[in-house]
């Protein structure tokens, strides 16, 4: 198995990264990269493999984030203990929103998911019981280790890494299984897929359930780390767009694409913000926007395409 070696090296690099990045800020960026990779990978199951471009995944992310902080504010539990509630809510939402919208094609599906997520965001913003517009706060100071409130980003990094590893293993498993083939077949052409016996709605729903569950978990982890969520930061349109952008930038529908996207975009965001943010000129986003445009212009399949280009060129040379 020649692919095992780079995988082991990658794993070791991920585990050892904090020892290279010994400054806490870089460690935080690394943690944010892994967190973004989790939600983008989760989105990738539906948006990438199945080609159903959801722009409403914030509803699942927000479920997780709100689940965690509601467990704290209402029940006084450690926020992470609320993750199961958040995941359960996300699964329920996935069924309620997924079943009617999956019959929509292409851009109609995208628009419907945007509308559903915005609807939920506005409703939560107007709903005092779940914090309303003010949002929800985590524990101001850790009461016990279970609150997962650390000064160092390292514990978060390793927790996130563990979740990401599990998600990537599941994704790799799905990729090689019947479900993975069915998802790609649906992307390739839903009518043709159904004529081959692919139960399209059930297949998409299965992918959406896994996707929603992990997106919600990412939301819970986000809330635990940041200690605050409000409708915009938990359920806003940009939360969904971020997942789409990261996966598409890295290479949607590939195992490593979302990870590549997160490892590119998050440091890019942080670097441009650190460099230009203070200037007040908006240069942060000029650079950010320009890079997205350039990548989409020259690598429409995402950065993962670069790797394929290199490989095919090498094959050409070998031939």
């Amino acid at each position, binding site marked *: 198995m020649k692919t095992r070696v780079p995988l082991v090296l990658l794993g070791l690099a991920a585990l050892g990264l904090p020892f290279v990045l010994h*400054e806490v*800020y870089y460690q935080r960026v690394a943690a944010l990269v892994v967190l973004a990779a989790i939600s983008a990978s989760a989105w990738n199951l539906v948006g990438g493999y199945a080609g159903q471009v959801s722009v409403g995944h914030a509803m699942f992310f927000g479920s997780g984030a709100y689940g965690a902080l509601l467990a704290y504010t209402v029940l006084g539990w450690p926020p992470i203990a609320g993750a199961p509630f958040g995941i359960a809510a996300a699964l329920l939402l996935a069924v309620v929103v997924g079943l009617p919208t999956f019959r929509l094609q292409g851009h109609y599906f995208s628009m419907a998911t945007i509308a559903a997520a915005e609807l939920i965001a506005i409703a939560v913003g107007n709903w005092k019981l779940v914090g*309303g*517009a003010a949002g929800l706060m985590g524990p101001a100071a850790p009461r016990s280790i279970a609150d997962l409130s650390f000064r160092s980003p390292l514990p978060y990094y390793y927790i996130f890494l563990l979740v990401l590893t599990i998600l990537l293993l599941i994704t790799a498993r799905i990729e090689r299984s019947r479900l993975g083939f069915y998802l790609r077949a649906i992307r390739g052409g839903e009518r043709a897929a159904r004529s081959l016996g692919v139960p399209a709605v059930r297949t998409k729903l299965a992918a959406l359930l896994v996707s929603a569950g992990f997106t919600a978990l990412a939301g819970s982890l986000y809330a635990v780390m940041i200690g605050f969520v409000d409708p915009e*930061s938990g359920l806003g349109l940009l939360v969904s767009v971020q997942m789409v952008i990261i996966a598409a930038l890295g290479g949607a529908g590939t195992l490593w694409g979302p990870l590549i996207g997160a490892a590119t975009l998050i440091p890019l965001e942080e*670097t441009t913000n*650190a460099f230009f943010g203070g200037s007040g000129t*908006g240069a942060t986003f000029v650079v950010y926007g320009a890079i997205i445009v350039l990548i989409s212009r020259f690598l429409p399949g995402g950065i993962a395409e670069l790797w394929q280009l290199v490989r095919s060129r090498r094959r050409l040379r070998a031939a």
Partner: protein
Amino acid sequence: MTLSRRTVLVAPALALPAILRVSAAHAAAAVRIGAIFPLTGAMASAGDAIRSGVELLVDLINTANPNLAPIPLMATAGLPRLGGAKVEIVFADGQNSPAVAQSDALRLITQQHVVALTGAYQSGNTLTASAVSERYGIPFVNGESVATNLTTRGYKWFFRTTPIGPDIAKLYLDFLASVQKSGMKTSKIALVHDTSEYGVSVADTIKKAAAERKTPVALDVAYTNGTSDVSAQVLKLKQAAPDAAIFISYTSDAILFMKTMHVQNYKPPILIGDDSGFSDPSFITTVGSLAQGVLDRSAFVPGKPGSNAAKINALYKKKTGRELDDTTARSMTGLLVLCDAINRAGSTKPDAIRAALGATDLMPAQLFIGYKGIKFNAQGQNILASALMVQLDGTEYQAVWPSDQASAKLVLPFKGWT
């Protein structure tokens, strides 16, 4: 093959420290303070104004300005108790994201080695950024966020100079009561507010306070920030015909409301804007001519020539071409209090700064803002924070109430446009 795959994945992450380290150039002996404000995104217009104000204030601190003598640190160049050390502000853009503001705080503390933080405008951003400073034991002085829960977290390192919800509600109700005494009816109050954290929290405190005084709010119109049309909201007001309407709106909506009220030819007898949108200089330049006589809650008025406020306003206007607005003045005051405390501490050690902040006791005469002074309670809230009612006349707001601080006479009813 193995090499290239690894490189593709890890290279961006590894390159980051090298890139960032370049930016961490150190200036010798200066006292570095981190300032997080929304410099991009939907709140950038406010952040931009604040940024200019902060730059102005730091210039004034770092140079000798004897004509501003009553204000701390003005007469001397730099911080005298630290050997004239200059203050250096490291700005960071909190955007519209609590997570970004938190990253900013961490970066400023651990990379830029700031001795204290100020900011971060949106309450959510202030909340997450100050959580970092609390963990690192770095003082954080906030001059402008109004969410009540910021000072109820039991934080040791967080201080706030601005008036908050209950102060604001009291101001409005006292003002309306005094207008009523002068013979104008004010019992029917309408609230118009957006559904942001700011709009809802201020509206709720006003509603609560009004109910306690047995003059419950008669009409409550909530709308979404950034809406594209407010005709229906204005029609509601027009039909209910309240004695006084209080708007709690950000700039874009405030502009839209004035334009729409003009179209519908509707003028409430008393029109009060709650700071933010109505204080934004853009509000005056865009719809000032439709909003003559609008009342605004503000802690800042340029006032009589020769006053601290007038001088600071003149300097700000010279720098930016615009009037100094209340929010910026409040943020500047937060920073001034912080610099004053660092100077009195005579040290940049966090504990010393915190002790000095706790001992802060500034008089109104030492400020350029209309607070009754600065004195923090155990929670870090300024107990002398207050605001006044100002009224737009031409392109400038004048203090009109309470009468002891007034620089012009209150003119009612609301004139609007001609």
